[in-house]
């Protein structure tokens, strides 16, 4: 029986574990090793060069720009997105005209809002990026044209072509595409908070904003915190790569004003033929990601509230 059990365990684990180890774990381990070599990626030969790649990285102006943009992303995007989402979710669940017998009420049409807000979440990030590339087009794009129709010609800009604006345009698209998911997520969380809590608080004279900060937010904190980490990883990883890679000129331009760490890794490895240096930048990205996750776990630690 015991023997049969271990054979079963091994039999069930062998295929998933092999695939996972071969395509995920092994490349990760390799890439950290390669960051200490002079591997070009074009030929299999390489030799160990110690910390040369890291020294080069610290003297590379483009790297510092990419790092600065990625850090901006990871600090700003989760706060803006989750802040907007909490605001909208609270409005949806609590902003309604009071109906008889209920302490709080959702707005009329709350399910309609949730359906519409969720749209961008089901679309490919590539489609979203393409769509906004056209919307931002200075000559025939939806944005400048709409501003013209509204008589706000003064606000028309060369959105993605202006180094001062391009990064903000990129961030706006990420906020646009992710907020809806968190609205729905937080709404589900808010709906499960017992109504009695609100009733009690209101009887004690609490206002809408007090109830939000004293009841809703603390009871929702676990969800907010995991959403925060999730959003940060997204802002550092594949999502920011896809948006910048598809939307911006260069990509990463104009004048490196939108380049981010994952894009730089991609460009060095697959365009520039500097695979070892690319993995070095990748290691920097890994460190930023882990530092962010650790920071949020530490800052966000609260006593878990059961209800």
């Amino acid at each position, binding site marked *: 029986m015991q023997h049969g059990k271990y054979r079963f365990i091994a039999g069930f684990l062998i295929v998933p574990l092999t695939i996972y180890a071969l395509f995920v774990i092994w490349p990760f381990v390799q890439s950290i090793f*390669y960051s200490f070599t002079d591997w070009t*990626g074009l030929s299999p030969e390489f030799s160990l060069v110690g910390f040369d790649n890291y020294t080069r990285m610290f003297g590379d102006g483009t790297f510092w720009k990419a790092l600065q943009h990625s850090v901006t992303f990871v600090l700003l995007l989760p706060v803006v997105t989750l802040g907007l989402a909490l605001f909208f979710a609270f409005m949806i669940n609590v*902003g309604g005209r009071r109906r008889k017998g209920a*302490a709080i009420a959702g707005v009329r049409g709350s399910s309609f809002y949730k359906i519409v807000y969720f749209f961008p979440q*089901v679309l490919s990030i*590539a489609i979203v990026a393409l769509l906004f590339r056209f919307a931002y087009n200075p000559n025939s794009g939806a944005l400048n044209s709409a501003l013209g129709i509204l008589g706000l010609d003064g606000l028309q800009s060369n959105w993605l072509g202006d180094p001062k604006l391009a990064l903000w345009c990129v961030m706006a698209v990420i906020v646009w595409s992710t907020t809806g998911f968190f609205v729905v997520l937080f709404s589900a969380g808010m709906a499960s908070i017992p109504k009695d809590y609100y*009733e009690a608080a209101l009887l004690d004279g609490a206002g809408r904003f007090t109830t939000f900060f004293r009841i809703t937010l603390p009871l929702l904190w676990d969800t907010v915190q995991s959403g925060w980490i999730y959003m940060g990883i997204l802002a550092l990883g594949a999502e920011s790569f896809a948006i910048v890679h598809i939307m911006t000129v260069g990509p990463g331009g104009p004048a490196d004003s939108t380049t981010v760490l994952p894009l730089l890794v991609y460009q060095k490895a697959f365009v520039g033929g500097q695979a070892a240096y690319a993995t070095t930048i990748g290691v920097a990205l890994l460190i930023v*990601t882990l530092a962010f996750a650790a920071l949020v776990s530490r800052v966000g630690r609260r006593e878990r509230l059961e209800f």
Partner: protein
Amino acid sequence: MKTTDPDLLRKSDGPGGPGLPAQRPAPATPPPSSEGQSKTGGTLNVFSHGVLVIWAFLVAMPLLWAVMTSFKDDKSIFDSPWSLPDRLHFENWSRAWTQAHMSEYFLTTVIVVACSLVGTLLLGSMAAYVLARFDFPGNRFLYFLFIGGLSFPVILALVPLFFVMNNLGLLNTTHGLILVYIAYSLPFTVFFLTAFFRTLPTSVAEAALIDGASHSRTFFQVMLPMAKPGLISVGIFNFLGQWNQYLLPTVLNTDPDRKVLSQGLVQLAVSQGYKGDWSGLFAGLVMAMLPVLGAYIVFQRQVVAGLTAGALK
């Protein structure tokens, strides 16, 4: 400011009493003293509707604009982006479907996602079941090995992975892409299904074992059917993730004849930009957008449950 049932209020302070600043009366029988407070409630309601409508508008407008643009001719796309199409130019759609290879991109994507999804669910549930239900040395280690993949930046692994795939002869092949999709979907799938299998009762599986069923037969005939709700949630999650995947195919699937949808569209944007066929490009974009949006509207409840389940756990 919101308030409770009027009866409760009378018991405490009376309507509009000092303990309840700016409370809103019941619409049916407004207490005479609270006209100003009624306005406050109304203002707040108008305000919340206002901001919610604005965001709904901001979300919907770009999508509607794309749909509208896909029916226009190139000249009016360029000259007046917000004007309605003079007539519905369906030829944009047929041009995108045939000449711009949208049909091929769709076919490739369907094949890759169908195979990856089945593989992910099968292998993910096998690994998760063993990790959730059996004690053996190294169980915890393997679990955290799988979970660890959730927080690492994928791009870091892609540089060596490109060469691993190349050495194995898997680069630019459909089965190679499927294997990679499965591998990168496993961390979340194992994480989610392990938690799910732990919540299932043990008694049914024990009964099956006592009746002489083998471990694998118990898994396939008893546990897997019981895990159906979890498999649907994680299946929807993986379907959307794999259907919309951009990073992995961009790096590992560079063969122009075998592009997946998201890649193909970007390719199209580059090439149509030179040809000036903007209308065809918008038709392709909308074509890629509509099936997913349509499926979402039909299966709205399940999709939302599937996508938010992981974060709420």
